[in-house]
């Protein structure tokens, strides 16, 4: 369970998160929508401790992410993250990209790591690209590679930061399909996304962020059908 309590985050003098309260249960798929600059991506970075916070707390399975004594490297193994820019390691093949972290972080042997990598690449449909370098892969394939790389750490939660925003339109589908597959398998997911179709069809709940505030949260039918907030209705009217 991820529990976020009165979370406040500043970049210098600019407050990007203004007191967020949010609980995500295991097995849940939460989509976070909102305009650029509304703080939704920053929220993900605060959850896995890539950004420090100024007030409040984030607790993952009982461990306070930002507390002093927390072994953040250990905690991050529970929190897989996929970025807008897929950031595949260019000097490693697809297989090595996925096998690296299990080997050096979890101390798996080379052959164990290789088995894990093969399994996860098959999982995302890249089993025919094991020895390809990222430069030989399309954007969609690289993003699926990034998903496999995160899954290889056997995380409990997956955080998606606009995983499809940097892709050519014809490549968005394959990545969304992979995300759908994970959701069906019961993975707990927080997806910051601009794909309203995905948010509506796949999510258990949808949160709308507006200028650093979580304006509204609820089942997709509520957010897309009868949003209570004026801002939410306006935003959705514009993106459609």
């Amino acid at each position, binding site marked *: 369970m991820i529990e976020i309590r009165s979370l406040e985050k500043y970049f210098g003098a600019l407050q990007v998160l203004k007191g967020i309260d949010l609980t995500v249960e295991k097995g849940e798929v939460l989509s976070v929508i909102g305009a650029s600059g509304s703080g939704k991506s920053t929220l993900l*970075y605060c959850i896995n401790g*890539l950004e420090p916070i100024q007030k409040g707390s984030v607790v993952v399975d009982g461990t306070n992410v930002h507390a002093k004594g927390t072994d953040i490297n*250990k905690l991050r*193994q529970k929190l897989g993250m996929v970025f807008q820019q897929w*950031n595949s390691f260019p000097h490693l093949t697809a297989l090595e990209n996925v096998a690296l972290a299990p080997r*050096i972080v979890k101390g798996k042997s080379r052959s164990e790591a290789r088995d894990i990598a093969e399994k996860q690449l098959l999982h995302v449909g890249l089993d025919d690209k094991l020895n390809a370098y990222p430069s030989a892969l399309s954007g969609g394939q690289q993003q699926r590679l990034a998903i496999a*790389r*995160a899954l290889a*750490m056997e995380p409990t939660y997956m955080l998606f930061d606009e995983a499809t925003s940097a892709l050519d339109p014809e490549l968005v589908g394959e990545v969304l399909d992979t995300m759908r597959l994970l959701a069906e398998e019961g993975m707990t997911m927080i997806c910051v996304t601009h794909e309203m179709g995905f948010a509506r069809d796949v999510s258990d709940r949808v949160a709308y962020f507006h200028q650093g505030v979580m304006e509204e949260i609820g089942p997709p039918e509520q957010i897309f059908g009868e949003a209570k907030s004026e801002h939410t209705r306006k935003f959705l009217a514009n993106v459609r």
Partner: protein
Amino acid sequence: MTETIDFFSGFGANDLWFLAEAALRTLWISILSIAAGTFLGALCGWLIYEGKIWATLTLTPVLDIFRSVPLIIQLVLFYNFAPIVGLNLDPFASGVVILTIYTAALVANVARGGIEAVGRPMRRAARSLGMSYWQDMRYVVLPIGGRAIFPSWIGVALGVMKDSALVSVLGYVELLKASQILITRTQEPFLILSIAGAFYFALSFPISRYAAKLEERWAQ
């Protein structure tokens, strides 16, 4: 009949051997200085990148000085003034010290650029997988940044090897000093400098060819 004493004698096979030995000494002083200088330079580059304030305030100006003052002046100053503070170094050791610092000053900038080349998003991705700071440095920053700066580093290394000729002013008999000795004896500067040049070429060319091969392999 007047007897003439011949002070000069022609260039012989022995002299070629003498030059080859000197070339080895050039290679040796270069390898030592480039290896130590690269290590030290990478360390300085990392300190400057991490922006620890004291490092930036103290290191950057010092490195600027070593980068900007001609190497020959650094060598002569160090060789003549180090004994004053109790450092009695022979020409070889003095040469290694100065060439090492000079290399480090050049490599520091290159290394910092290499770390910057990897970029924050890539490093965050590595950290998000649970890698520690040092694992990220070792498995992500080093290989990616290292490849990015490899051509610049090769440029620095080859430059330092040629600049090692300046250590001749301290009396260390490397390739250039050896050539000067032979020229004095044989009075054949054209021939001997050509041979010395060929030796320098023979040392540098394989390195730059091998470097180009490596880059080609990484590019695919």
